[in-house]
Structure formats: C-alpha cells, structure tokens
C-alpha cells in the first residue's frame, strides 16, 4: 500500500507526465484531436487502476504502459488515420502555428508502419526507453522488440531521405539485443 497513488498524487502525476504522455500518444496515432482524447482515456484508465499499482516500476513507466495500450487500442477502435490538413500551409514549418506540430515526411513515413512498430519507434527514439521497458509496455519479448525496430528502421530508411552519411555502422539495435538490454 505504500505505493498507492492517492488522489492528490494523481493530480501531480498527471501534470508532471501529461506532456510526454500526450506526445507519445500523438506519435503513435498521429492525429492531434484523437491524441487528446486518447490521452484522457489513458488517465481515466490509470485512475481506475491506480489501486493495482504496486510500485515495481516507476509510476511514469506504469502510466506509459497504460497510455501506449490505450493508444494502440484506440487505433483499433477508432481507425484513426493521419488526417490531411485542409490548409496546405500547415505543412510549412515556418507558417505552422506555434506549438503545433507540422505534418512532416517523418509523420507520413510513420503512418506506413504497423501501429505496434510505430509505438516501438516512438518509445525508443522519442521517449528514449530501453528494449526491456519497451518489451514490457508492448507485452512482448526483448528480442521481438529488436526485430520490430529493425524492420521499422529499414522501412523508414527506405521512405525517408534524411541527409545522412551512408557509412553503415553497427546497429545500436543489434548491439542492444546482443547485450541483453
């Protein structure tokens, strides 16, 4: 019971974690309105399940697990798709409203991935989680996360024209798996 998240703590947890949780869900579902709704769904679920929080992991990690599952579930339920903006200028970073993400090639490329692979990419490269934590969140094995990320990166590399040197280095993904992280 020492780890129980009481109501006051939950308000603090919400405000501390909201930006990251919202952005993570946005990265997974790609639609701002849907991300806002799903973020609220995630916190409702977290609130309802807070008595089951045992403190084995930080509250933020526990919350992220609920958030990602809510986002993936929401994608299936709502068939959320990345929407085409009515105003084409929103594509332009320079003219996009402050605080609003623009619809980039990266987002379009992410759309081509399966939702679980997209979640893995966001958790790995935006939230900076290790493979074991990603595996826990996605309910799969560390090895599966490695192969999921590897395939997703290949696809993104094929789709994106990043201006990066073509010197192929050893994959950090492969390194992480081989080191059992």
């Amino acid at each position: 019971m020492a780890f129980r998240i009481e109501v006051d703590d939950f308000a603090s947890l919400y405000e501390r974690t909201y930006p990251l949780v919202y952005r993570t869900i946005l990265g997974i579902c790609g639609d701002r309105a849907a991300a806002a709704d799903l973020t609220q769904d995630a916190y409702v679920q977290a609130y309802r399940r807070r008595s089951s929080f045992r403190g084995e992991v930080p509250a933020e990690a526990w919350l992220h697990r609920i958030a990602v599952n809510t986002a993936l579930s929401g994608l299936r339920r709502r068939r959320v798709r990345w929407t085409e903006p009515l105003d084409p200028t929103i594509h332009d970073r320079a003219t996009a409203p402050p605080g609003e993400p623009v619809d980039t090639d990266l987002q379009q490329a992410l759309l081509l991935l399966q939702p679980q692979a997209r979640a893995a990419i966001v958790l790995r490269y935006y939230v900076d989680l290790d493979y074991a934590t990603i595996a826990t969140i996605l309910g799969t094995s560390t090895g599966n996360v490695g192969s999921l990320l590897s395939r997703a990166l290949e696809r993104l590399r094929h789709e994106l024209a990043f201006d990066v040197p073509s010197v192929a280095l050893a994959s950090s993904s492969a390194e992480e798996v081989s080191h059992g992280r």
Partner: protein
Amino acid sequence: MAVDRRFEDRLRDELKAVLGSASGPHPSWADAPARRRVTDAAANRGGVRRPTTLLIAAAVALTALTGAFIAGGGLERAVAPAPSPTQPVAITDSSPSSGFLAPSPSSSVSPAPTASPGVCSTQWSSDGTVDPKGMTDGIRVDLFDPSEGSLLVAFGHPLYFVRSIALEAAAPPFKTATGAAVAVRGSSFYRLTLRGLTKTTAAPDDILPRSPGIAPGPGGVVAGPPMAELRKLQAAPYSRPVDGPKKDSTEVWIIGLQAPMCLDVHTVLDPIDSEQRGPNALLIRFYPRP
C-alpha cells in the same frame, strides 16, 4: 541487419523536434476531462447511489422494456439463446459505430428473474463468439467492484471476446488450483468462472466487507452486503495478447453471501467506457429467495 546509427540519431532528432513542439489541450488536472470523468465515479463510490448504478439501472429497465416489446412480437428476435436458464433478449448496441468490430449475437442480457414471480435463478452463463487473439490490450477485467451490494465486472472490450463466463451455485469445501482448502465467509455461495483471460484480474484476491471504523482508501475494494466475501480461487496465467489466451487461462472466484440468494445478471455497457462495440460489463445482483 545493419542500420546506420546516424540514421537513428537523425530519426531521434526529427521525432523530438516534431513531437516535442506539440502541446496537448489539457495540461492541468483541474481542467482535464479525465478528472471530471473519474470524479463523478469516485464521488459516488461511497455515496448512496452512483451514476454508474443509475445508468446501469436505466439500461436494465430499458432492456426489460425491450424484452417485453420483443415478447409481444414487436421485433424479430435477433439473439441466439444462451446456455442459460433465463431467456436472453436483444440489447441495443448504443455505442458509436467505429466500424471495426462486428457486433456479436452474444450481446445479450438476461431479464430480471424477479419479473417472473417464484422464479429463482441460480446459474447464468455466456459464451464468447469472437476470437480474441491479437487484441492489443488482451482479455482482462478492468473493474471488479462489489462495493455496492452488486458485483460490477467491467472488461475493456465487449463480452463476446471472453471465451466463457459462468455463474453457478456452489458449496464448500473450496480448494485453490493447488489443492489448498479455502474457507469463505457466508452461508450460500456462487462460483464465478471466467475462461479465456490473458491476465488475472487486478483486484485483491480476498475481498471482505468494510471494517467498522476503517474506511478504505479511494482505490480500496470492499464487499457490500449481501456479499460476505469474494475469494479468488484460481488466477488466470498471463499470456501475451498477441497470442490470445491459453487453454488454462481461467479465473475462478467464490462469492460468499450472507443468506441464500437468487441470481440476477445483466450485461450492460459500462458507462465510463461507453465506446465499446457491445456490452462490456456484467452487473451481478443477488436477491432473497421468493
């Protein structure tokens, strides 16, 4: 398969630039829609009535009316009979259409046995009709709440994904899956068997009535009368949602009652998660024998 680390670094930078500039519309808990949703539920948890109960009661009443209408020939019966002693009737799916999940003929509700004088039902069951394999969140109970004298069991998905749900009268001795004898408070008992879960229910294994002078915390789970105790005899082993539930993914509860009681089960939409494609919650009530 080698992936350029510089590509990964660039991807990381791009993601942080794109997502890092996004700010959600509800950064404050005070203004969050989630707060309003949970405050209503939590505030009423300790009260005389709660919206959930009222909404469920309304759903039950509506269903009873629907049943009466159907019985009168007003609608063509659309539900296959369930292996239950009570006759199921169709319940209107009031959830918004997402177009993803086909509604199942198992979305049914049992009319209140009290509608038939002298009838005392002591069993109820429901069989799943849709393969749950690959369900992102798995098959599990989201809410197991016996605090108000009825047991509300809400799933995060429609009931037709659950392989089977059965309630039946039971008698001691009770034993756990390992054979250990378990004493459960009460003078009559029901066994609740949930087959096909991918994770055991996140509720205390032993739920007792509220102790005098000791109020449970906001997340506390207590058994409201006439329930004397709810004891989990068997937990469903975890299985990966992508694989679906294992064959032995069965959870068993014994519900001890203060007196011999009849059973009244309704399948409803849990109002706090009303986006489900079909009924996703069970409202289990007990009433004295006629």
